[in-house]
């Protein structure tokens, strides 16, 4: 992409600014949520398919833009079938790993190569089941795009210790947003690499400072502990000792893990801004995102602790809080009427891919 192209992705003064809003409330969602959980438990999981549809419809339906709202159209029975298939696959895989580590490994590799296919189908299902103003979205991405975005991108990020993460982000956003279609019109998303690299600087600095601070703290704790002359040998030899060690390992790694999560969130929030700001719908409407990276990380982390410390009860409030923040930080600059779009999608695609996305916590929504 060259500079003239990026100039095109800046909103012109004649465009109408349409902010996204989220109209759901924690109080209202609490009722939906607790009934979802209760019925899911009572039916040993069967209701979870219905729960997913109600949850998604609540969040999509409360996401409003230019007087219209989004909606989710999946049929619970199809989701249930998808979940059952995934469950059986997991069961077979578990058995294979348990009994035949070698074959399990082979299946694992095969599974790895199937992941892009699952991701592709999952994105397509989610897109086709989503509508805005009575027009369905669609997704035209193929296998190799998903292979790049999810497998190779992931390996690149890990293998380079995050230094090549922007390349992976470029692939991922290009694949997920750039292959989306609204009705029969394309959506393009071309985040430029140097801009994505710009989003890496601050999180990288946080990572370096954070690791140094944690190592200094760990050294301090170690010096204190060795002063106490604990008899580690004796602790090792008992069952209580095993749990003690596990607890110690978890406590020691938790700060590093939290730092890693924080850095990941800061970076991802930054790339969302870049990617949305270079997204063009139907060649004329522009998307824009203005997330504050620290505010996003604060909401996500405080949401997590609020949920865990209330044994899940704060989850409805937390989910609504995040949805509201993401909506208020997102804007559409429309270049004209949104009236002339036509839906081309019929309810036909399989749901197994979408369920795999759920299993892996990759659930991709708007």
């Amino acid at each position, binding site marked *: 992409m060259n500079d003239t192209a990026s100039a095109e992705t800046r909103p012109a003064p004649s465009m109408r600014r349409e902010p996204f809003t989220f*109209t759901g409330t924690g*109080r*209202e*969602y*609490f*009722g*939906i*949520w*607790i*009934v*979802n*959980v*209760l019925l899911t*438990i009572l039916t*040993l*999981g069967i209701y*979870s398919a219905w*729960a*997913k549809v*109600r*949850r998604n*419809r*609540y969040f999509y*339906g*409360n996401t409003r833009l230019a007087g219209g*709202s989004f*909606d989710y159209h999946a049929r619970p029975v199809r989701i249930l079938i998808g*979940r059952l298939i995934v*469950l059986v696959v*997991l069961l077979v895989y*578990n058995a294979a790993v*348990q*009994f035949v580590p*070698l*074959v399990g490994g082979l299946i694992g590799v095969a599974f790895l190569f199937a992941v892009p296919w699952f991701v592709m189908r999952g994105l397509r299902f989610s897109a086709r089941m989503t509508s*805005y*103003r*009575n*027009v369905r979205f669609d997704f035209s991405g193929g296998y190799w795009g998903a292979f790049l975005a999810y497998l190779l991108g992931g390996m690149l990020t890990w293998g380079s210790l995050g230094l090549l993460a922007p390349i992976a982000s470029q692939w991922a956003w290009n694949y997920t947003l750039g292959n989306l279609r609204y*009705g029969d019109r394309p959506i393009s998303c071309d985040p430029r690499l140097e801009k994505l690299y710009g989003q890496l600087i601050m999180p990288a600095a946080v990572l370096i400072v954070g690791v140094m601070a944690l190592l200094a703290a760990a050294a301090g704790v170690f010096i204190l502990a060795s002063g106490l002359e604990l008899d580690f040998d004796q602790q090792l030899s008992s*069952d209580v000792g*095993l749990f003690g060690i596990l607890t110690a390992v978890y406590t020691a790694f938790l700060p590093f893990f939290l730092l890693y999560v924080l850095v990941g969130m800061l970076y991802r929030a930054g790339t969302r801004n870049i990617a949305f700001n270079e997204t063009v719908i139907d060649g004329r409407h522009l998307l824009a995102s203005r997330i504050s990276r620290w505010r996003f990380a604060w909401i*996500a982390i405080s949401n*997590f602790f609020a*949920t*865990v410390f209330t*044994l*899940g*009860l704060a*989850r409805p409030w937390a*989910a609504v809080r995040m949805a509201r923040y993401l909506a208020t930080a997102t804007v559409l600059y429309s270049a004209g009427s*949104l*009236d*002339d*779009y*036509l839906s081309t999608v019929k309810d036909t695609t399989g749901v197994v891919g979408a369920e795999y996305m*759920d*299993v892996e*916590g990759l*659930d991709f929504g708007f």
Partner: protein
Amino acid sequence: MVSDPIVGIWHPPASSRAVAASLHVGEEGIVQARDVDGKPLSATPGLKIEVSDRIGGIVRRLTFLDGSVFETPDNDGVDKALKALKRRPGVVHELERFRPRLALFVIAVVALSFAIYRYAVPLLVEAAILLTPPVVPKLLSQSVMISLDQTLLEPTKLSQQDQAAIAAEFGRLAEIAPRGAAGYVLNFRGGGAVGPNAFALPDGTLVLTDELVALAGSDREAVLGVLAHEIGHVEREHALRRIYRAAGVAGLIMMIGGDIGSGAQDVLVQGAALMSLSYSRDQERDADRYAVQLMHAAGRDPLAIARFFDLLATKLGDSGYADSFLSTHPPTPERIEDTRRYAEEVAAGK
């Protein structure tokens, strides 16, 4: 029975075009959308119109037979119209309304979660085991044996006499177990990287390594004690139980995952992994007790297995085997003491 008009927006089939419209239920139960001038846009018999479920305050969608859609935030109006058409509005929304009753739901969720983990999961595991055809463990075990032979294990170097002696004594032990001597096949192998080890596959195939026999030295009873422990794993179907349980817990977490967020889901997955550690430790304890009972019933020394643990702890404590019997069967002082006490009880009781 003509209800008040409901105000909303009408979309032509599959189109984003929005027309300000109102909805009317006519005398014959025909539902009709009209534009602001009162001109009809679409009509469908009330029993055939598709009405989306009521969820919170989101707009309600009514789909006509021609595919056009009427949308309205007037949920109460739609429910009233549905009643007029003798159609039942959804019950779930009634449950979901923010009322003091929700506090009861919270209590029910907590109690049920506990009950499911404590009772329903074990029950489902038992059901799954009953429903598993015998061919499943057989096929699994055969393929494991083949892959183990190709990779880790070596041919045995034990003399024919030693093999025959151990096999004969093992046969007398297996005879008393419910599956009988025919239910078991004892294999001798060189342990290679797995060192002094013994393990059982779910179809009754047992493997005993030369290194373990050598470790026990002249104490044959100790070798039999270990084999009795492995028989215990087979008789109690520990391997299948572990798999079904892991799958069941993973399934439950998966079902609830979307409702609790990915962070809390990760916490649950980690918690489940920790719990499964303690679960497999319980299985080892169970197999120990089984071994003690079986040895006693066979007229053998029930203390043999405890003696073997002692041997392991002293002789193998600092040996180089990373993946020996030790790592899967840690002979902690508690475990040795438990087994010894139980063995003495059993020996004294009968």
